[in-house]
């Protein structure tokens, strides 16, 4: 899956303060923003489109990692041919 980067700029002093106070509550700013992006995605992108993208991603990931046939399956097929 290809990743893209979104950049948001703000005052350095304010960012420092946000990081400091969020660290105290053991929250990471970047994680928080990523979570928010996911919420935006779920809010604005229709369900059908999301499903389509998810399925497409699954197919791509399957295609990238082809399954190697295991020994058991080979045996099973061979036995079935013998029966015939």
């Amino acid at each position, binding site marked *: 899956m290809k*990743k*893209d980067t979104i950049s948001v700029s703000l005052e350095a002093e304010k960012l420092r303060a946000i990081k400091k106070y*969020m660290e105290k509550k053991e929250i990471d*700013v970047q994680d928080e923003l990523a979570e928010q992006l996911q919420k*935006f995605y779920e809010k604005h992108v229709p369900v059908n489109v999301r499903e389509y993208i998810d399925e497409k991603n699954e197919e791509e990931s399957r295609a990238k990692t082809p399954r190697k046939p295991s020994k058991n399956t080979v045996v099973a097929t061979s036995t079935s041919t013998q029966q015939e």
Partner: protein
Amino acid sequence: MSVSTEKATLQVNFQKEKLEALRFYMNEKDLTVEGELQKHISNIYEKYVPSATRRYLERNDNEQESQRETTVSISESPSDATPRATSNRGRRRTERVQSEQTEVPAETINSEEIEESQEQTEDENQGMVMSM
């Protein structure tokens, strides 16, 4: 007074195709991902950073705003017609109230006069009857 505000950049990774879809549907609503994230960051800032710290960090902004306000008020000073108008209104109102107050006794006087004149006519009538 020039205040330098050092900028920092926050970067967030998101799946490319999902981001494309998000941008597409947000564009339809005249929104941008960056803009919405910016809003969210300002919400985070208000949520996690205590108000005292925020006031301290925004001291420069406030100075700039106050400078702007003073310049605006100086530029607006020749056209002070609006507050005068309101004061005139006040005057008008007070004048009205005063006139009403002065009118009320006049009405009472008139009614008293009428009563007196009615009594006089009654007395005259009685006199007439007596004479008859």
